[in-house]
């Protein structure tokens, strides 16, 4: 399998998962209860696992299938590629994740709301990809779909609790929904190189999210702002800080094995 654009497509999905895992990893030992520390670590591990499979696949895509601008305006520095070269040696302009995944964490409401909005997209995405023509991608998706179904369930449970909990938790949950909502549009923007038009996932996403928000007594924002650019490597100012930290040790020891 080496469709043109496949490399960028795998990066987009893999970077969503990697950056999500990285942000969740920042929450170690910080959640409201030990059970939740375990659950968030679990979810981080699942996303990291998906990222590794997707980036490893991307690393093996033959050069001929790479786009002219390999993952951005700057060349990937390390050859041969592998998952670590892609994770640790690209700059933010070469990352393809949606902006939603890179925003810094606010409070716990922000953590679970973002997870809801992302997982509600990843569930139909990986469901559909599990039936893709590309057998390797289909196998990755078949594994990942079960995991993201749990993520969705977990996040939805929390959003319901917070939205329909106390006045404070309702306010925080609504603030999180309002802040994150504009960033969801990008998830459904066209994405070349994959077997699916993301726009076709929107109906499923809408159904899931609308239902959870209603149960959570949260209002669906009416915000027309639709920031984007992540799929083209145009990120927020936050991503380069995340990468500076994530890559610091790896880059400080060029050529080392770990």
């Amino acid at each position: 399998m080496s469709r043109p654009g496949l490399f960028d497509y795998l990066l987009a999905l893999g970077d969503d998962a990697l950056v999500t895992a990285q942000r969740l990893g920042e929450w170690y030992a910080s959640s409201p209860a030990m059970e939740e520390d375990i659950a968030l670590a679990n979810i981080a591990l699942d996303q990291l696992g998906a990222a590794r499979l997707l980036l490893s696949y991307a690393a093996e895509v033959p050069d001929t299938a790479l786009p002219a601008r390999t993952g951005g305006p700057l060349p990937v520095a390390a050859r041969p590629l592998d998952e670590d070269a892609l994770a640790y040696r690209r700059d933010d302009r070469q990352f393809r994740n949606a902006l939603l995944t890179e925003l810094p964490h606010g409070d716990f409401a922000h953590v679970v709301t973002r997870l809801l909005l992302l997982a509600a997209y990843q569930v139909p995405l990986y469901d559909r990809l599990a039936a893709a023509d590309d057998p390797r991608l289909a196998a990755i998706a078949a594994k990942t779909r079960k995991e993201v179904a749990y993520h969705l369930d977990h996040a939805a449970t929390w959003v319901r609790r917070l939205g329909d909990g106390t006045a404070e938790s309702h306010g925080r949950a609504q603030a999180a929904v309002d802040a994150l909502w504009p960033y969801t549009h990008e998830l459904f923007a066209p994405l070349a190189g994959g077997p699916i038009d993301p726009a076709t996932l929107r109906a499923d996403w809408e159904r899931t999210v609308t239902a959870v928000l209603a149960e959570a007594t949260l209002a669906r924002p009416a915000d027309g702002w639709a920031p984007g650019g992540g799929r083209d490597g145009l990120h927020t100012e936050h991503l380069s800080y995340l990468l500076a930290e994530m890559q610091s040790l790896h880059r400080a020891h060029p050529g080392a094995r770990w």
Partner: protein
Amino acid sequence: AALQAYFDAVIAADQKIEPRDWMPEKYRRTLIRQIAQHAHSEIIGMQPEGNWISRAPSLQRKAILLAKVQDEAGHGLYLYAAAETLGITREELVEMLVSGRQKYSSIFNYPTLTWADVGAVGWLVDGAAIVNQVPLCRCSYGPYARAMIRVCKEESFHQRQGYEVLHVLGHGTPGQRAMAQDAVDRWWYPSLAMFGPPDADSTHSAQSMAWKIKRFSNDELRQRFVDMCVDQARSLNLTLPDPDLRWNAQRRAYDYTQPDYDELMRVISGDGPCNRQRMAFRRQAHADGAWVREAAAAYAAKRASDREAVPA
């Protein structure tokens, strides 16, 4: 008196005391203190290692480290559950930790300065913990013994992973090897101190041995740990920072330099490099979570009253 006799007989027969059994109040209190301190150590222990999750130098190492920190939360949970069988609630236990009324293992008051510290903590700190804990799998209190079986199994996995981190570094670039040696230099003596003061100065030990809560003396366990580490250090291509470490053919054990027990006492009493940082982190997380726990309780209460409101 019959109860005491039965208790004594169970202990003598190497059988287990179970939650429903009568037990001396002091046995109960000693166990609560010991299990709670162990649980708190798992919870606080997430911090020094969690410190490197975001910067782990490969995705595989990141996954392994995330899983390890997650396991520590899991150990904290089983151990709190074991303590709860002795008639104390989780809320009380957590309160004892954040108020500082109960301790956690002093080893976690040292900082993890480099990636190699993740390896050294796994190899030395988890290694020492295992030496301490394996005998507890035969502890006289059933729920604790069973929790320890599970904990020890996972800990030896973690120790192996720490060893592997150091093995790669010890056989890596000069910079990596220096980093590994530096970490072992810093963690060696604090790890030896994990076994507690020398037997001569150890206070609670005699009663705990009699109750089979403790099965070997501090010095016996420390020696076992030293003997275990010497060979492993060689395979790691690293040295232990003790110029007086040498095989004693007569004792059939290694002679070694004792750790600085005054330092241990200072760290226990609150003046280690990270005591305040660890406690501040834990308190902050606990305080930041209050509104979430309240929301979860309010939500559960609403659901419960919804159910009651359903006509019969």
